[in-house]
């Protein structure tokens, strides 16, 4: 295979060797159903119990507060829909932000068609909310605050602990979509007044198709899937043993090396930011320092993001864009519009997302290949002519 630089780790990550090794027995000889009572199956049961304990301890939670799901989207859907059901007698008002992932945003939009009322807190140009806006938005009938821990497109980290404190003092449930944050920045349910937290394994080098929802003890969230009573009766379905074991192994590894990874990865990220913001009419999106270690996100004016992605692909670089043309709709990313970018600039977005698997050579390669691509597309753009 020709040279490939994978710089789309916010989309998904490579499975870690440790996670794969941990999973292998449960993909091969240890195929017993964890619900069966004979010794053979109890191996699977023990593996899941062990994984649950591991995840709980890393998140500062108790094992019975961890519920395994199929991933972030399921966890988000479950948390939000069920919180509304749980607090139906109190009201139907939810508070969120304008920069949530589609798994949250589209769930909220669906609930709005069912009579829920949603306040989307505005964000500033760096993607930050104002806690005073949050306080002011809370009403008597507010049942849930759902705010992401860190943004997947622009990397901005949100103040989960502070939001949790506001929610707690107001008696409102707080859910955080921490899919992009877990395994990358410290996050603990112990000190953060979080009632529910979504995570997914494949964002921290675990397998795809396996995630978890933390539900704080005492929050009696309604059942998501009825059936054989798995996951304490709340989420039935035979467990994805290998996935669960892989999730725990990957999370353990990511947590163990979090500080050193963050240091090395954010240094590479900052080299990208320093190099690419030198390109005329370009800028960083998201907060310059309060951002995920791996995410370098930009807009390049007068060109379109999908074209950048395709030319990067020809150079062997995998990246992504929030431009309209890289999605099925013709609207650019709602996150980029929420931070105040006009449509025509939001079309020129590029996200490079790194992991500890990237090298300094990868950064050199991107810094060498990307500027001529921007220049080439601008030389073809009638807007660039007008600008000059």
């Amino acid at each position: 295979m020709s040279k490939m630089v994978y710089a789309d780790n916010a989309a998904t990550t490579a499975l870690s060797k440790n996670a794969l090794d941990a999973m292998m027995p449960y993909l091969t000889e240890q195929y017993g159903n964890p619900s069966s009572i004979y010794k053979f199956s109890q191996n699977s049961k023990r593996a899941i119990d062990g994984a649950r304990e591991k995840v709980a301890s890393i998140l500062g939670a108790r094992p019975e507060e961890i519920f395994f799901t199929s991933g972030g989207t399921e966890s988000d859907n479950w948390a939000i829909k069920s919180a509304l059901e749980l607090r139906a007698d109190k009201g139907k008002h939810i508070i969120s932000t304008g920069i949530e992932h589609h798994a949250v945003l589209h769930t909220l939009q669906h609930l709005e068609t069912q009579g829920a009322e949603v306040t989307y807190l505005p964000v500033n140009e760096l993607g930050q909310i104002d806690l005073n806006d949050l306080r002011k938005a809370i009403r008597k009938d507010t049942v849930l605050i759902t705010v992401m821990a860190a943004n997947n497109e622009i990397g901005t980290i949100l103040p989960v602990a502070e939001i949790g404190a506001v929610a707690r003092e107001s008696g409102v449930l707080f859910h955080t979509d921490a899919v992009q944050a877990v395994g990358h920045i410290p996050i603990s349910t112990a000190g953060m007044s979080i009632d529910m937290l979504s995570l997914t394994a494949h964002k921290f080098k675990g397998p795809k198709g396996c995630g978890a929802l933390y539900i704080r003890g005492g929050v009696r969230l309604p059942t998501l899937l009825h059936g054989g009573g798995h996951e304490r009766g709340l989420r039935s379905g035979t467990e994805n043993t290998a996935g669960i074991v892989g999730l725990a192994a990957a999370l353990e590894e990511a947590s163990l090396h979090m500080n050193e990874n963050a240091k090395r990865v954010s240094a590479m990220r900052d080299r990208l930011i320093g190099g690419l913001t030198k390109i005329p009419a370009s800028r960083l999106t998201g907060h310059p320092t309060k951002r995920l270690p791996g995410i370098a996100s930009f807009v390049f004016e007068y060109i379109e993001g999908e074209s950048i992605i395709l030319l990067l692909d020809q150079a062997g670089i995998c990246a992504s864009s929030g431009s309209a043309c890289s999605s099925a709709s013709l609207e650019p990313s709602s996150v980029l519009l929420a931070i105040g970018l006009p449509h025509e600039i939001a079309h020129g977005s590029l996200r490079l997302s790194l992991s500890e698997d990237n090298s300094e050579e990868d950064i050199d390669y991107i810094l060498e290949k990307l500027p001529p691509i921007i220049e080439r597309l601008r030389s073809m753009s009638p807007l660039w002519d007008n600008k000059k």
Partner: protein
Amino acid sequence: MYSEKVMDHFGNPRNVGEVEDANAVGQVGNPICGDIMKISMKIEDDVISDIRFKTFGCGAAVATSSIATELVKGKTINEALSLTNKAVAQALDGLPPAKMHCSVLAEEAIKAAIADYYQKQGVDPEPIIGCNFNCAQCKEE
């Protein structure tokens, strides 16, 4: 997601730039939607002797511009006016459904340039071509 032909025309676009002594220039699309095509032509004796394009847009927008210039270069005005968006898409071995609007834009850009040519000749293009595809103008009106 794209055919090889689209990727070829995107990666090695034909006729990029501007015709220096152009007597027909058309621009369609708008930056808010993420696509703008600008086509310039030299028309001599009813024949498009030279044509170039500049495009702001996605891979399909660039590829449809490129193939459209190839399809009409050396053709008469009437032949160029008969170019449909479907023919543009077919010449690229098809486009994903979400990208068909790019082929429409290519057809419109050709027509807008020819409309400009007629206008410069003092001929009202509307009876010949119909709408001049200057949608910004339509919105202002």
